[in-house]
């Protein structure tokens, strides 16, 4: 972090002083809990590189030591972040057979057979007709939403949507209206307003109305109310864009996301989008939809014409892990992982609630946020837990409102019950010392049994 600009005389200040007030005086004091470097595979255990700061977090130095921790911070829902095993071996083999870098975009001879193979596999996985993939998950939203929307479209988006969705919507030129998080009355009101009143001033009807929601919200841990949204969509003839970044692979009895979880027909959701970073241990994103939709999107997508195509080992990792999840590799490994993740999430959440912590979100979601409210408490918990060998993620402003900071646990199928119990013990002890066990909801009597969850 630097405090002086190399050129000051005559230039307009690059950063508005009030904008950087929070960064310099609040964030800086606690920023040793973020951006911690790791030097191992981000699996069930993580090796952190220890940093020390001689000047109150203005700068960091490496002490030379590493700390091994239980990893509850990385997005590793099904435990595919592995450096050995069938997926890793497949990726390594692909390095030699397909190379690492394609050096072109998919529209300019950068389209390889594994890209087409991946597209078809993804479409089959999510249950839609066709899909296209992109080299970066963030870019999948930011580069494709402007191709689907225009200035005569109305978008009704959830207030807690991700930054990539908001960027894509803003640059598309559509009118954006926000509804309260997961609140169906608020959504219906916006839909009615949109259909009845049409465009502002002219009152012409909107070309298309889109509802943009996420499957699992990463900061809230809530699962979207998909059946109700599908009902509303049919009533008002809107289109749904569902971003399943955190739910694909992680939710649902077969791991196919929220459509699977709610037993809804994936064809009812017009556009399914997701990323491969979280449950598949790779990188990139996809959009799935009807064959007609994907064909036209392919000809218009910014990523197809200007974005580099996905690297071969990454694509192979996705193909490999997806085949395992679908059970098509001949083993029951996929089902085992899905069940383990689901069991871990439910067990951990119920235990936390029993201990008296304020936990947000749906019981089945693999993201478990615990409210702590104060930035200082978050910093304390993160630091102390690292000392005890547990890596957690603390979330504060600007990802959440200023006084609604939280600790977020990311469950993984690679965690065992013993690991979770150890984490719960340590967390409960620390939580006592900062008075975080203050939930006023009734606490479940009787033991939470792992096998019965």
């Amino acid at each position, binding site marked *: 972090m630097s405090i002086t600009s190399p050129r000051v005389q005559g230039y*307009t200040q690059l950063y508005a002083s009030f904008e950087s007030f929070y960064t310099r005086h609040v964030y800086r004091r606690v920023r040793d809990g973020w951006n911690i470097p790791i*030097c191992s*595979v981000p699996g069930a255990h993580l090796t952190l590189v220890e940093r020390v700061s001689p000047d109150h977090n203005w700068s960091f130095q490496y002490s030379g030591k590493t700390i091994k921790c239980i990893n509850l911070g990385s997005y590793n829902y099904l435990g595919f972040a592995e450096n050995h095993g069938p997926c890793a071996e497949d990726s390594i083999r692909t390095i030699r057979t397909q190379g690492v870098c394609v050096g072109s975009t998919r529209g300019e001879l950068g389209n390889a057979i594994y890209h087409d193979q991946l597209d078809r596999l993804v479409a089959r996985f999510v249950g839609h007709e066709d899909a296209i993939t992109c080299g970066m998950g963030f870019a999948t939203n930011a580069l494709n939403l402007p191709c*689907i929307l225009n200035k005569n479209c109305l978008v009704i988006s959830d207030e807690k949507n991700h930054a990539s969705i908001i960027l894509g919507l803003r640059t598309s030129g559509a009118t954006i209206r926000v509804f309260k998080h997961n609140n169906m009355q608020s959504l219906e009101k916006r839909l009615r307003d949109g259909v009845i009143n049409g465009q502002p001033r002219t009152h012409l009807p909107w070309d298309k109305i889109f509802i943009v929601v996420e499957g699992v919200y990463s900061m809230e841990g809530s699962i979207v109310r998909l059946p109700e949204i599908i009902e509303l969509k049919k009533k008002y003839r809107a289109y749904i864009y569902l971003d399943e970044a955190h739910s694909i692979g992680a939710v649902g009895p077969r791991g196919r996301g929220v459509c699977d979880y709610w037993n809804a027909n994936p064809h009812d959701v017009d556009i399914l989008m997701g990323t491969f970073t979280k449950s598949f241990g790779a990188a990139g994103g996809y959009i799935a939809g009807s064959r007609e939709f994907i064909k036209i999107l392919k000809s218009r997508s910014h990523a197809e014409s*200007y974005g580099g195509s996905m690297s071969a080992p990454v694509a192979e990792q996705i193909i490999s892990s997806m085949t395992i999840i679908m059970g098509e590799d001949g083993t029951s490994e996929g089902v085992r992982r899905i069940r383990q993740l689901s069991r871990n999430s439910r067990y951990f959440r119920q235990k936390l609630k029993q201990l008296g912590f304020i936990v947000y979100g749906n019981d089945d979601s693999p993201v478990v946020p615990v409210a702590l409210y104060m930035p200082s408490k978050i910093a304390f918990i993160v630091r102390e837990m690292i000392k005890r060998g547990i890596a957690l993620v603390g979330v504060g402003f600007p990802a959440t409102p200023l006084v609604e900071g939280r600790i977020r646990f990311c469950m993984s199928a690679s965690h065992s019950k013993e690991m979770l119990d150890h984490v719960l013990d340590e967390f409960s002890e620390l939580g006592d010392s900062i008075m975080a066990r203050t939930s006023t909801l009734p606490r479940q009597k009787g033991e939470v049994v792992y096998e019965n969850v």
Partner: protein
Amino acid sequence: MLNISGDYIYQSIIQAPIYHLLLEGILFMWVIWLLKRKKINPTEEQPLSAKEQQQIIDHFEPKPLIYNGDSRDEGVEGDESSEIDWGTIDGPAGKYIEIDGTKYLNLATHNYLGFVEEPSILDETERCIRQYGVGSCGPRGFYGTVDVHLELEEAIAKFLNLEETALYAYSFAAISSAIPSYAKRGDVIFADEHVNFAIQRGLIASRSEIRYFKHNDVEDLTRLLNLQRKADLQNPVKAKAIRRFCVVEGIYSKTGLICPLKEISELCLEFKVRLFVDESISFGAIGQTGRGITEYLNVPRENIDFISGSLEQGLGAFGGFIVGSSYVVDHQRISGLGYCFSASLPPMLAGAGIQALKLIESNPQLIQELQNNCEYMDRKLRSLSVFTISGHPLSPVKHMSLKKSFGSRKTDKLLLKEIAFHVRENAKIAVVMPAYLEKEEKTLLPPSIRIAVNRLLKDNEMDDVVTALKEAANVVLSKPDLPDYDEPKSQN
């Protein structure tokens, strides 16, 4: 006080002068009239009844989810769908590329230094998978910062002798997230008219006022800067609050020409404008040791606020980066959207990038070989009379368009496509035409075939390319029936 008797009021009315009573009386009547008149409010509508609302809902007919023709600007020239199916590749796209089962000499994909099949890079990628797995499973802030990322950032910064680097997982995201993190609504950005699409998206996302100057025209930029200075002098309070930026590319991907960076950086210093340079193509391709356009034109790097680059084109890895002084680049780590809210680059691809940089640093003759090939190709291509060659002699990206247009843009594109496929089938050499989203680009250049030169080509192979192009042009352009632009030949 409240015991004002009726007698007191009566007395005060009697004793008041007449004009006073008249005035008060008129005022009183006027107030009554104002309160009583009907309010004429034309904008207030009667609220709709529930039945009327249901009627509107029943009659609502949305347009289809997506269809050809629902794009934003109807007035922009060019094709809605300009997609050509070049085929599907198999195997590494190195010196040779295998398309649909046949091997071709590869002049289509960007492999300037020939690193796609470089064994040490592939070895390093494998080693990184065995240590870190494939994905990084998190954004930079939440345990997604792997030590190889920090190593690569340091290596790039040291390579260019600058302070700090921010590494992005996608080169498109690097420059298009960097610009809006500094420039906001109300600021002014001066950009070259032919900047690439990623920069254009960054400019749109910034919401600033964009002033385009003619391609590589320093006088035009001076004119715009002077206009801005005049406006600033007229309104000094506003001038103090707005920031001024200039965005250029080292080698332009649309034209292959080099930007006059020395003059532009001096102009920016004089007018107090912050300068951003996008070196996606020029990093690792020009300059004595491959350090980019600042080395080639001998421009001090301290005068540039940040340089953005790509690891996907010349270096055989993946991702993008922003490098500059700590004061400028550090801001990206909390406000660059593609940095904070995206998972970080897979560690194995960062490892590939580190190895590529090591190779460039220890083998500057690689750059020399590439530049020799670029110059040779330039000389030979310029001998073709039917094409116009766009591109600096040292640029690895060269555009060949038809010297004489054959009627319309659509016809020219079809002819060039036929030439490209003719070269492919007959000489077994792969070339492409750049894919542009014509309805979204700010400027459209004449359709062209793009040649991407790489270090591995031999002189006789480059001669073959030129011969093949000449022959293809002869065959295609002398056909008696040129494609009728009402019935395009391109189909799926």
